[in-house]
């Protein structure tokens, strides 16, 4: 067990690679109750969300969610979030565990003064269970009368799950795989019962419990950001390559917008997040330095590991914009030795689209 944002959590149950592969090929089940949840309600809630978050919440329909972020005025990250539109004037922001207190304080400080707004930290109300993998739908379908098929990626609904009424069922996740996240009452007896029933339902598909280790390698293969690694209070939206979720023209002067506009006007960021694939033998890990082939230190790996499914040693790293073209060769200092690596397009892993008939280019979403 490790301490993760104040939670005692297993890094692995049966073995990281086995858990990782279960999610890519069958189904894996994660206890992600450590994630925090903030609910915003009241007639001003849309205005508050638009001020607080960089994506354009006015585009969301009831039952829809999207990836977004809370920024500091200088355009760096308070946290990345998933925003759910529960109803008119009713939003749920799912936040990270390690940043929960900071996030709640930031929300209150930034929009707490607005009238017509009720802010509630509902993190402790929910046990959040993620069911991820190509067999996630088949697994969850056995436990609910709700027809899961029509729920599109990044949409959600409510319904009975394991006999519990009005469970939030979202087609979201952090693995790069199809899957669902369900939000059930947080009391221990209910949580344990649902956890057991989900694993039992998935048994025929090879379902196993998955820990933080597999969660990390899965999201890395999918090139999804992790707070404190790819995003932080010293990295801005353009640097982190998350501009597609930042709606500068949404008509609201959201926190961080002005600083981000200035960066754009002055020619864009000096460094950017890229994917690296190790060419020579060696594994680039978090914090390892990146060098040009001429031996100049140019950047740092933010997350690096063997990719159990892609079977390559992969990493995300910040490098100067002159090094971001795929195919650019660099070196990573691995325990005193220079090991060659190459810049590659991300994500490292992209799942096959369900029912796709043509190999049309897929627009990638970091939390899909």
């Amino acid at each position, binding site marked *: 067990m490790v301490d993760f944002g104040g939670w005692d959590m297993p*890094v692995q149950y049966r073995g*990281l690679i086995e858990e990782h592969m279960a999610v890519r090929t069958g189904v894996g089940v994660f206890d992600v109750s450590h994630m925090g949840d903030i609910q915003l309600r009241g007639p001003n809630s849309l205005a508050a969300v638009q001020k607080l978050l960089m994506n354009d919440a006015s585009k969301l329909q009831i039952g829809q969610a999207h990836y977004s972020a809370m920024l500091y005025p200088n355009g760096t990250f308070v946290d990345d979030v998933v925003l759910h539109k529960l109803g008119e004037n009713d939003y749920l922001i799912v936040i990270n565990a390690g940043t929960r207190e900071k996030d709640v304080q930031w929300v209150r400080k930034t929009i707490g003064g607005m009238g017509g707004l009720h802010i509630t930290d509902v993190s402790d109300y929910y046990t959040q269970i993620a069911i991820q993998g190509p067999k996630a739908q088949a697994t969850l379908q056995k436990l609910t009368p709700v027809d899961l098929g029509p729920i599109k990626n990044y949409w959600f609904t409510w319904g009975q799950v394991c006999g519990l009424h009005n469970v939030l069922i979202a087609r979201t996740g952090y693995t790069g795989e199809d899957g669902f996240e369900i939000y059930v009452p947080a009391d221990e007896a209910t949580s344990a019962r649902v956890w057991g029933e989900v694993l039992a339902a998935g048994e025929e598909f090879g379902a196993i419990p998955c820990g933080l*280790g597999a969660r*990390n390698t899965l999201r890395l293969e999918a090139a999804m950001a992790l707070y404190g690694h790819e995003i932080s209070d010293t990295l801005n939206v353009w640097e982190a390559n998350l501009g597609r979720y930042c709606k500068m023209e949404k008509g609201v002067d959201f926190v961080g917008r002005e600083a981000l506009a200035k960066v754009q006007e002055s020619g864009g960021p000096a460094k950017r997040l890229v994917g690296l694939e190790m060419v020579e033998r060696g594994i680039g*890990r978090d914090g390892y330095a990146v060098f040009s082939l001429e031996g100049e230190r140019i950047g740092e790996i933010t997350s690096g590991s*063997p990719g*159990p499914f892609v079977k390559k040693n992969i990493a995300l790293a910040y490098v100067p914009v002159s090094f971001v073209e795929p195919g650019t060769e660099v070196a990573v200092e691995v325990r005193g030795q220079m090991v060659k690596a190459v810049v590659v397009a991300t994500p490292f892993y992209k799942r096959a689209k369900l029912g796709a008939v043509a190999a049309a280019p897929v627009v990638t979403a970091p939390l899909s």
Partner: protein
Amino acid sequence: MSYPETYKYAKSHEWLLLEGDAATVGITDYAQESLGDIVFVELPKVGQEIAAGATFGSVESVKAVSDLYSPVGGTVTAVNSALNDAPETINTAANATWIIKLKVADAAGADSLLDAAAYEKFVAEETGH
């Protein structure tokens, strides 16, 4: 987890089998369990001289990398090159999977190694259970 009585154990979690001036070194069951899925073992070269307590390579799992320390000093006589293709063998049989063999020049360090019972106690204390 099991720790054979015939081995001696280092606090850096290597096991050592000493037969005359021939030493065989691997990592303990506890070490493989802590590391998780092992994906890479960095081996020294045959003929390389290693001082007692010096690193002779590393073992990497998906989540971590750990140096390997030689409990005794000597010359490498063999390396288990099968580990290049099947490093996960260490996970399935840590006690039976040797990493290097040495011709011992300096066995002084061997005296301070732990026997199986003492190592098991050391691990229990280190992990707090």
